[in-house]
């Protein structure tokens, strides 16, 4: 059987491991997970209007529909673990613990944004929570995550790294090289492929003959599993197994999460792009809403009441309102910011050194 089953390789966590402050939760608390999913959805639904209204610039790629992946995976991580993300990165940021106020300020191009307004949607990062950055390059974040995993391996403190990427990224050379080297070196790295069936506007069969992504891992001697990416708890279980394995020094694994994005691929101007995917497909996937699914499970288990859910929805709406107010109140960066941050302080600025500017 070429494709390892993560389940089968998941030994019960060792006692020492359990005691480590770096260990993830064995049993996740589903309520914060649901709350995070709601927050991601609210955040990304709202940015569509904000982009249309001209409060946000450039390109946005809403994560709506895929919330269970980011939240399920990050529930298996500690703050000391690190993730790299993609162009569709807001969900990963929020799930890893970034502050939506500073995210929103970044989208608004303001000085209180995570990148002081220099990065925007495709470059949000929060190193303080182990979120090493969204990335505008398909598969570009994978080598960076492997670097973080290498650092973790050398540090020997049982940290792990996770890279999120899409089904389209699997066609890139960097995917292959990173799987190969991390398998070879047994890096503590988890590959999380969000297979949303489209790479940009192209269906997955424009990318791959074998649209089963998990099968790719076998060639590297890497265990892999393909799961329902709209089931947050299933994502958590698979992630926990892979993360445990990585933490124990047993190397990387790949998790293919089958999911779907509810909106357009991206929005580059004020108008909302027309839907090009089959409406039946879209409807079928909307019916598999990851949030409704987790919520109804919790409701039926009585972990959550309808009132509790409504309160949660109200709360995240309020949180996003607050984030927007925060962003609006934050000033745009001043002109002096332009030449800052190219190099660490240890050096003189080359632009100044070469004197080619008007400043």
């Amino acid at each position, binding site marked *: 059987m070429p494709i390892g089953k993560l389940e089968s390789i998941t030994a019960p966590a060792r006692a020492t491991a359990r005691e480590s402050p770096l260990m993830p939760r064995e049993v996740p608390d589903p309520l914060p997970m649901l709350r995070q999913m709601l927050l991601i959805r609210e955040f990304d639904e709202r940015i569509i209007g904000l982009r249309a209204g001209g409060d946000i610039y450039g390109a946005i790629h809403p994560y709506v529909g895929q919330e269970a992946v980011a939240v399920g995976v990050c529930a298996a991580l500690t703050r000391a673990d690190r993730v790299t993300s993609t162009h569709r990165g807001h969900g990963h940021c929020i799930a890893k613990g970034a502050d939506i106020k500073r995210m929103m300020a970044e989208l608004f191009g303001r000085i209180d944004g995570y990148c002081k*307004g*220099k990065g925007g949607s495709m470059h949000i990062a929060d190193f303080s929570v182990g979120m090493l950055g969204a990335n505008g*390059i398909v598969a570009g974040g994978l080598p960076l995550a492997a670097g973080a995993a290498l650092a973790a391996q050398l540090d020997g403190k049982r940290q792990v790294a996770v890279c999120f990427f899409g089904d389209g990224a699997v066609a890139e050379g960097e995917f292959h090289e990173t799987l190969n080297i991390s398998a070879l070196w047994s890096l503590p790295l988890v590959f999380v492929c969000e297979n949303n069936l489209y790479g940009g506007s192209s269906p997955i069969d424009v990318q791959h003959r074998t649209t089963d992504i998990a099968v790719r891992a076998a060639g590297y001697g890497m265990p892999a599993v393909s799961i329902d990416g709209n089931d947050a708890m299933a994502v958590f279980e698979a992630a926990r197994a892979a993360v445990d394995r990585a933490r124990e020094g047993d190397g990387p694994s790949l998790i293919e999460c089958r999911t779907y994005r509810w909106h357009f691929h991206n929005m580059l101007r004020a108008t909302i792009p027309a839907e090009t995917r089959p409406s039946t497909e879209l409807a079928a996937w909307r019916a598999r809403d990851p949030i409704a699914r987790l919520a109804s499970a919790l409701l039926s288990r009585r972990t959550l009441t309808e009132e509790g859910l409504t309160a949660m929805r109200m709360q995240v709406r309020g949180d996003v309102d607050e984030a927007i107010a925060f962003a609006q109140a934050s000033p745009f*960066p001043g002109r002096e910011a332009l030449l800052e941050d190219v190099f660490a302080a240890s050096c003189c600025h080359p632009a100044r050194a070469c004197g*080619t500017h008007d400043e």
Partner: protein
Amino acid sequence: MSRSLSFAQALDEAIAEEMRRDPKVIALGTEFTGKLVQQFGPQRARLTPISEAAFTGMGLGAAACGYRPIVNWRSVTFSFVAMDQIVNQASKIRYMLGGQADFPVTFRCTSGGGLGLAAQHSQSPYSIWMHLAGLKIILPSNPADAKGLLKSAIRDDNPVVSFECVRLNDAIAAVPEGDHLVPLGVAAIKRSGTDVSVVALGYYVQEALAVAQALARRGISVEVVDPRTLVPLDVSTIRDSVRKTGRLVVVDEAPPTCSAAAEITALVVEDAATFRALRAPVERVCGIGVPIPYSPPLERAALPDRERIEAAILRVLHEPASGSTRS
């Protein structure tokens, strides 16, 4: 006869016309503009996986075997994933192989900032390609040139890289009817003048023209030269202009260091007659040497604008009398 087309439409028309004209012309890319697949079918208009290195090399390989592929990287940003195939293969292959085959492949990409897309997606790195020997490079500034240059590129028997400024995408202007071709290697004097030469690239040709028009009202005569092709570069038109005006401002959105603007400056001052004619330091009005920031006020500050172009023109005009130049 001509009609109005957007820059994007003009480029689409160039592709469609050349594909109709020559069955050996094929297209490769992760996405197409226009109706390429519908018009020419999925065999000739091939939607590729997101594998830029592979399909760039495939364009070159198919060119070696009788086809004339048009490879669309979309943003020039994505071409860096394919850089081995460009630098180590495409730019050198004909020479290395002693000229035993031609490689008629056209690489298309968008370039430039101004749309709030941040550093990775706001690059203008044509000088990187210019530095290589073996690639031709076009950089049109309006729809008519875009169509005419791209058609010439597709018919050229060499690898040609077409840089298409994102900010020009929706620019609308007259495009001649019929088989409109603009030869590679021939600059256009977009406005003639006598006081100062402004060599502007891509999007900044229109900005330079606007400044020239404004300054004309103040009695300053600005000549605006649009090289249109960066390789081969029409250096004699540029030098002639500078010999006439004695002053040069180069305008481009790429950062100045080792840029096309640096090259144009060097070409002017290493020619003895032009050097002797030069009456003021050359001014480069370029993008500031930082990755392009996302936030609109910062992005505006990073990119050249009419104010900076005008200020540079006035500086070279007052040199040395007014003492207003930088030092």
